[in-house]
């Protein structure tokens, strides 16, 4: 779960994500992405595991499957052809196609103990929380393109004249 109000836009979550997955600091390859279309209005975005998993259904090569442990979407790197169907199927456009990867990148919840959440709490920002089996309404609220979320937030944070 993401608290947009608490997010500072520090991107420590992105750094923690790629240190964990690639052993490198690689902002572009992070599974959680923080967008900031308007300065002062950061929008973290990450897979929230929709109950109906439209991405999994959209994959023609069956490269995506749901983990029974964490509920995360797992990518079979050998099967993924980077066709981009899942990106289109996702209501937030969240799966990422990144230079240097032959398969799509989706949050795997680090097997149930996500590094981004730990990092964000460790420094005391607490903008991210892990919630087991969220209700479908929670999910619908987050699975939106970052631009849309940013528009809403901008109105509230920065407001008009």
């Amino acid at each position, binding site marked *: 779960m993401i608290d947009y109000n608490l997010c500072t836009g*520090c991107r*420590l979550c992105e750094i923690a994500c790629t240190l964990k997955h690639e052993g490198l600091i*690689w*902002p572009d390859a992070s599974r959680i992405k923080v967008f900031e279309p308007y*300065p002062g209005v950061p929008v973290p975005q990450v897979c929230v595991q929709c109950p109906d998993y439209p991405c999994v259904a959209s994959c023609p090569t069956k490269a995506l499957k749901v983990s029974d442990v964490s509920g995360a979407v797992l990518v079979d790197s050998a099967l993924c052809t980077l066709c981009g169907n899942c990106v289109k199927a996702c209501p937030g456009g969240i799966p990422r196609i990144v*230079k*240097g990867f032959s398969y799509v990148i989706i949050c795997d919840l680090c097997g149930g103990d996500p590094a981004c959440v730990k990092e964000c709490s*460790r420094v005391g920002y607490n903008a991210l929380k892990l919630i087991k089996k969220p209700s479908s309404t929670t999910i619908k609220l987050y699975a939106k393109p970052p631009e849309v979320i940013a528009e809403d937030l901008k109105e509230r944070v920065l407001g*008009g*004249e």
Partner: protein
Amino acid sequence: MSYFGLTGNLLDVDLSTGKTSVSKVHRITYRMFLGGRGLATYILWRELGRKWRQVDPLSPENLLIVMTGPLTGYYPGIKLVVSGKSPQSNGVVGSAISTDVAYALKSAGYDGLIVRGASKDPVYIYVEDDKVEVRDAGRLWGLKGSEFLEALRKDLGRDLPSLYIGPAGENLVRTSVVMSRWFHAAGYGGYGAVMGSKKLKAIVVKGSGPLPKVANPEEFLKLRYEVLDKVSQRKTFRQWGTTAGLWSTGHDTSSEPIKNWIEEWHDNTEFSHVVMERKYWVKNPWADWGCPLACMKVSKVSIDGKTYYTDGPDYEMGAYLGSNLGVFKVEEATALSSLADELGLCGIQTGNALGFALELYERGYLSREDLGYELSWGDFKCLSRLLEDVAFRRGFGAVLAEGTYRAALKIAELKKVGVDELLQYAVQVKGVGVGAHGIRSRKDYPQPIAYAASVQGGDHTSVAGLPANSEESEAWAVLIDSGVVCMFTAIDDTTMIKYLNAVTGWNLSKEEFYGVIAPRILSLQRILLLLGGSDVVWDPRKHDDNPPRFYEPLPSGPYKGAKGDSEEVKSKLKEYYLSLGWDELGIPTEETLKKLGLYDAVEVVRNLRKELTT
């Protein structure tokens, strides 16, 4: 062997020809100059050193250098150094800015970027990994900060890391800055004008690769979490940022500029961070890339139906555009900071020049006829108008656009009064307005020689001090700015050097840093500063000193009567120079140069000394 923590590549863009190329920097060069400020100084010395005095900082000959360091991206917090021959000091200033351009450059495969020549028409540089383009910026030219960001976002379809200038830089205002992310600036040095002189509106960088591998991943992670944990405990700093200084630097330490430094103490509880927090912060805390501290805030104020956004305002901006101009309403100081951000003006340098003008006006050197309107302390309307006049070089604004020192020279000429008479009221050192931390009360961090001996003049982020081999000296700023990290997330020299070694695989020791590397970088900066030109040349016997105001007693507050002691300054200068291997004029001795491996500077220094002693 690879370059751990570094890409080893510099991108070179010649705006006169439109040609771009990539050059390698030798590993030994990094080991000698670290990166950032150190490496930029070395490049400037190598390329322009021979003809330094003839190079006009605002001519195509000057270089604009944008540099990361070996710690950039790895050490929590992010900074980038902007440099070149400074149109303020005529030396080299390593001007640090918080910007995501820093990690993006490394992700794109470069440690830095050198821009040379000048374009005929407005352009911006677009870097996307190995694709580098010089793009037309016709429709971006003339835009203010927020307008520019909006236009760029629409153009590119998304937000990308960028450095840019406002109208002030375009109009070659010497107190202009290089901006990023709405409110961030590389202030000291005046590099906005250098970009403007090259007709370069912006530098936009998209990097998609990883940061280079580090030499010792285990040690790196250990240190990384050590620093993250320590820095994230700086809770009051997170809550209030530097805005707290608006109150504490004046009230507690009597070192805040008030009315062109006539005073340094105030007891005005309305002029404080707490008022900002209660009434005007719409986002707090706000952080830069990789930062566990988050000292920034977004403020929003409305005055006469107009809305203004800025950060805190941070202490320097708030003090210089607030108390220094007699403005004690936080919303007005915030609005003036916001205007400065939009225009691409340095709040410190411009606030310093405006304070100078206000005092001259009060003393009768300037009049309504010169300005076209009345000037008075704390008058928001005339001050915001004057800020605009400076940015667009309109009317008397064109004089102040030269910065305090050069404005004094011009006004002396115009009014037929002695230069030294006017310079009494100029609170600057070597063309650089002094940062918002006074030395008279001795309760703040700068020492009596902080500015007098600094190779970056009045820069409060690069202050000199004793002992020379400690965090008290300018060597500490060299470490931070060459590393390149943020001074607010820095812990101490031991941690920093360990961190450097973990990332790069070097075996740097504290002794080597303080004994050889810092003196090497400082010596080169000092030589270039003394070479100066093309318009002004500094004489250490005269200009290695505090502004005259710092020798006047403080008129109020708990430290009333405190003032600088010029005998003490003289003897401390000597001691400081000696410990760096410099002579009594602050010129590096031949022996020192040889020890530091700067053989090619021997001849230049011999001539400098001859010039100053005959």
